[in-house]
């Protein structure tokens, strides 16, 4: 039963030292056999006029206020003076450390970036240089080859020209020989047909025919 569990304990505000409560309750001054009001509350919760719902029991308020003030005050002091500054410090130290590490990492990264940059520029330089050398060599070879080709071409042209002049000479020679031969043939033909004809007359005649 409920009252059994509570009879060995005293109830706040139900003490012999506190006659005001007893008077308030309108009960006998002798509190000893009365156990407590809460036991009665449990036995017959709503039957008694003086049965009080425990949270609304104003007789306990004083002691509870005292204890809440004391305990919460102590808690506040411990929190604000010891616990929270310590946790805040831990977090601060960690944040600083992480920020320091991040800054260090950033520094190293920039260093790496710079190294990569130099490497790249040097590579580009070398590439440009090799390009230049290759171009130069190519140009030199090309100019040499051009020169040689020009010489050969000039040589060829010269030979062609001399050959042409020779051909032309031969041709004119041949043509003039043709005239001679025609005249002689004409003289021979005319001599055989008609008699003697001078070579001079024949040539004039041949020339006249050829010109027509």
């Amino acid at each position, binding site marked *: 039963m409920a009252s059994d569990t509570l009879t060995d304990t005293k109830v*706040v505000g139900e003490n012999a030292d506190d006659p005001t409560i007893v008077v308030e309750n309108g009960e006998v001054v002798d509190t000893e056999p009365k156990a407590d009001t809460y036991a009665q509350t449990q036995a017959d919760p709503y039957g008694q006029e003086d049965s009080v719902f425990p949270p609304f029991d104003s007789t306990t308020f004083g002691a509870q206020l005292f204890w809440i003030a004391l305990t919460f005050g102590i808690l506040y002091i411990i929190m604000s003076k010891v616990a929270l500054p310590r946790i805040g410090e831990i977090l601060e130290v960690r944040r600083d450390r992480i920020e320091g590490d991040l800054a260090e990492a950033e520094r190293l990264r920039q260093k790496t970036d710079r190294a990569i940059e130099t490497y790249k520029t040097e590579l580009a330089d070398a590439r440009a240089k090799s390009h230049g050398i290759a171009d130069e060599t190519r140009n030199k070879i090309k100019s040499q080859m051009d020169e040689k080709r020009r010489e050969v071409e000039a040589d060829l042209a010269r030979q062609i020209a001399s050959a042409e002049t020779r051909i032309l000479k031969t041709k004119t020679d041949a043509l003039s020989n043709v005239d001679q031969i025609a005249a002689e043939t004409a003289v021979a033909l005319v001599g055989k047909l008609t008699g003697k004809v001078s070579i001079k007359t024949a040539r004039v005649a041949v020339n006249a025919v050829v010109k027509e």
Partner: protein
Amino acid sequence: MAPTDPISQFNIYTLFSFGTVGADENGANGFELVFTNSALFMVASVVLISSYLILSTRGRGLVPSRVQLVSEIMYEFIANMVRTSAGNEGMAFFPLVFSLFAFIFVANMLGMYPYFFAVTSQIIITAALALLVMGVVIFYGVWKHGFGFLKLFVPSGIPLPIMFIVVPIEVLSFLSRPLSLSLRLFGNILAGHIVLKVFAGFVVSLSALGALGMVGSVLPFVMAVALTGLKLLVSALQAYVFAILTSIYLNDAIHPGH
């Protein structure tokens, strides 16, 4: 056997007494300082929070251990909440909000343990915490802004005739804040414990009916288990709500004109 009625779990009884102070010669009108079960669980909450936070961070590990991580997550959670709700100036109240959150959270969670006492189911406790918050808000607001704190009740950019309606509403809403702040926590914890106890009581009373009752008592038992899960959620949520409302009210004290 434990009492099955839903009310007895809120009983406050004296564990020992420190004697009466301020009594007259007849021993009357004194304030008897008693150590009750309620006080025991307040002390337990404070000891639990303090020892956990201090012991878990003793190593000051750069790489946090698991226990240290819990403290750090709690710290950062509340710190972010205060910062977003009340700005950087509000960080002056961070220890207060953190203490409130930790105290309510641990007290609620301790109250969830069977046979343990839920400190936050006492209206005087929640009222004291709410009045502490409102006291801080009013004192800080008046100290910082003087009469400018009254701008809190006068929204800017509103024509004068409407002001006569709005200002009383603002005053009323401000006055209802401590009431709602304390009653919300109190009501949630109280109602949750009562409902849980009622369903658990069904299990006991049905089981007493014999074999059929025992089979039937499975249903309220399942309900009690589900309610326990819901209560755990509500306990954590109410601590969060109390803390976030505290930061929002502190924001009003820091920046009264809105």
